[in-house]
């Protein structure tokens, strides 16, 4: 995995995006978390290879996606050619068989360990939409913008990235989206090895929650519950109560399972927490704080509203 400087990469991405589209871009994932926590510390890097750019709002996503991709391709950004669907489709290609927009910066050796690429995604069209692709026609053919059900939470009330004109996801919103995505430890493993090990996707994503909590290093995580409540009520007005009540289930399962927790620990130590390692029990303590302070407070809010 690449060791990248969040500030540097974010600046590079912002500079490459046409100014008119920057307001539609929200950076999410480990780069966003790294930028939030390490932006004033040049010595800290993030181990990642993908820079996820969510386009929002949904009605502007296709237009912004076309403009951004056009400009990047014209500037020499290189398409990533891996996976099942590599070639652009046409109007007849089912939308879920279209390739995603994944682009390496110009001149980068894509085979290099240090190479990173951007990927374009979009927020869901509505609260009812789950994982879905949106068609993105370009001169080269049709591409797709993937969305995931809880991306609306991830991109809720994003923060400005300095004076770069793009925004990045709030760490606590990324944490909530991961909690909602994994109400249990699912058996599916990640498509590629994580620092030499096969890892369950749930453990990696729930581990991200623990890493964010560790980096946030708050004396009190209860304010997260308030922000979470607002995000849930805004993004899922008819379902927020059920979502709030189940948000902690996966984290509870993770903390209760020695093997799964150890996998999550492995992803943290080789990911967001690589530059500040800590013992397993300290990571568990961070999880207990999120659970006791934030998740249980959110559950209290939900129960009071019943």
């Amino acid at each position, binding site marked *: 995995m690449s060791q990248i400087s969040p500030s540097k990469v974010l600046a590079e991405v912002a500079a490459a995006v046409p100014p008119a589209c920057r307001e539609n871009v929200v950076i999410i994932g480990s780069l966003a978390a790294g930028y939030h926590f390490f932006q004033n510390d040049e010595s800290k890097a993030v181990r990642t290879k993908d820079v996820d750019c969510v386009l929002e709002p949904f009605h502007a996503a296709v237009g912004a996606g076309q403009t951004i991709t056009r400009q990047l391709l014209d500037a020499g950004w290189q398409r990533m050619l891996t996976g099942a669907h590599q070639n652009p489709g046409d109007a007849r290609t089912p939308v879920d068989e279209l390739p995603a927009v994944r682009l390496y910066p110009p001149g980068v050796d894509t085979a290099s360990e240090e190479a990173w690429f951007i990927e374009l995604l979009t927020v869901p069209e509505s609260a009812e939409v789950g994982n879905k692709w949106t068609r993105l026609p370009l001169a080269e053919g049709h591409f797709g913008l993937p969305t995931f059900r809880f991306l609306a939470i991830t991109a809720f009330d994003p923060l400005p990235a300095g004076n770069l004109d793009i925004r990045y996801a709030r760490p606590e919103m990324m944490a909530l989206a991961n909690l909602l995505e994994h109400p249990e430890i699912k058996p599916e493993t990640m498509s590629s090895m994580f620092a030499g090990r096969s890892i369950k996707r749930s453990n990696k994503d729930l581990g991200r929650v623990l890493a964010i909590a*560790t980096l946030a290093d708050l004396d009190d995580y209860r304010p997260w519950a308030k922000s979470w409540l607002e995000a849930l009520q805004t993004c899922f007005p008819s379902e927020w109560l059920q979502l709030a009540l189940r948000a902690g289930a996966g984290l509870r399962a993770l903390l209760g399972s*020695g093997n799964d927790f150890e996998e999550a620990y492995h992803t943290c130590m080789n990911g967001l927490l690589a530059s500040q390692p800590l013992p397993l029990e*300290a990571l568990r303590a961070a999880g*207990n*704080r999120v659970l006791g302070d934030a998740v249980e407070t959110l559950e209290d809010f939900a129960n009071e509203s019943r």
Partner: protein
Amino acid sequence: MSALRFDVLLDDPPGFRADAVLGDSIFEVLIEPRDLRRLRASLLDIARFSAGKPERRGILVLADPQISEPRLSDEWTGARAVIRPEVFKRLAMVVCHDGKPPQTDESLTPEERDHIAAVVEHERGHAVHKVGGRSEAFFDILRPLLIAWFRGSGPLTSKELSAQTGFSYPTISNALRELEPYLVRHSDRRVELRAFPKDAWFRLVAQAENVRSTMAFADPSMRPRSPEVLLQRLRELKRSDIAVGGVLGARHYLPGLDLIGTPRLDLVVHNPRPGGSHELLRKLDPALKPAKRGEPARVFVHSLSRPVTFFQKSDDGMVWADEVECLLDLHEARLESQALEFLERLTPRSKP
């Protein structure tokens, strides 16, 4: 972490009441078991529960068993022979001896292991509501006498001492007899201390951990919350039955106490209900967990069971433990020079 629930009535098996439930795991606790039939019945209970669903686990906790280890081992082996293997592998037996780390089964999850102490504490509270022995009664009577002496609140009748401590006249009479050299007996039969009862005090200091049922909590986060942060959260709880002792309490009575920083937080809980300490600590900082023997602890919870607490409430809503509790905490924290300074400042200049 799943929430630990105590004394839970389950639907499956019908009518079965588990001592504690943690996610899909149940705990059955036997305090000082000496009866093999009871042990076997409990094993059968957890096996029946675990047989209901493949994710269920049953943990039998034996606190201070009066049954020999070879006998326990025989029982476990015997159970293995009669319980289906796919069920038996989800059962565990944990043996706890007072003051020693539990001998836990390796099959326990870290979360289950973390909760053993809380489960035993809860069950002990139910099994035998503490009845103070002779020496504990003596210390419980000594403490209000010391508070009265420190505060200069005047002599006490036996009736008042009985109301404050909950002990009977004969018990109070015995304790006073033991304290005779340090007592002033007034003509109206009221009593008060004339001097600091050094010997009795240091006996109390030596036994304070047991007398006060102290529980220690460690913070494994490597990012400990400061005592001030914990205090703020305690204040938010608006609990009148929890008081702050230790260094912070001593500073309440003696603001000039010579000590930089606050090395630990001491809390005194009045009539704690079983498991209540863990719930309280979770409200202050969910990262706190019962300290293992020898593990550095950051928060200490002492229980106080006498009818009158002598807590003091300050204008900001903070409740403070009495001077004796604070002094005991200083000794327990090995802050001997501060304890001496505190004692000197509390000691009345002249007594009748």
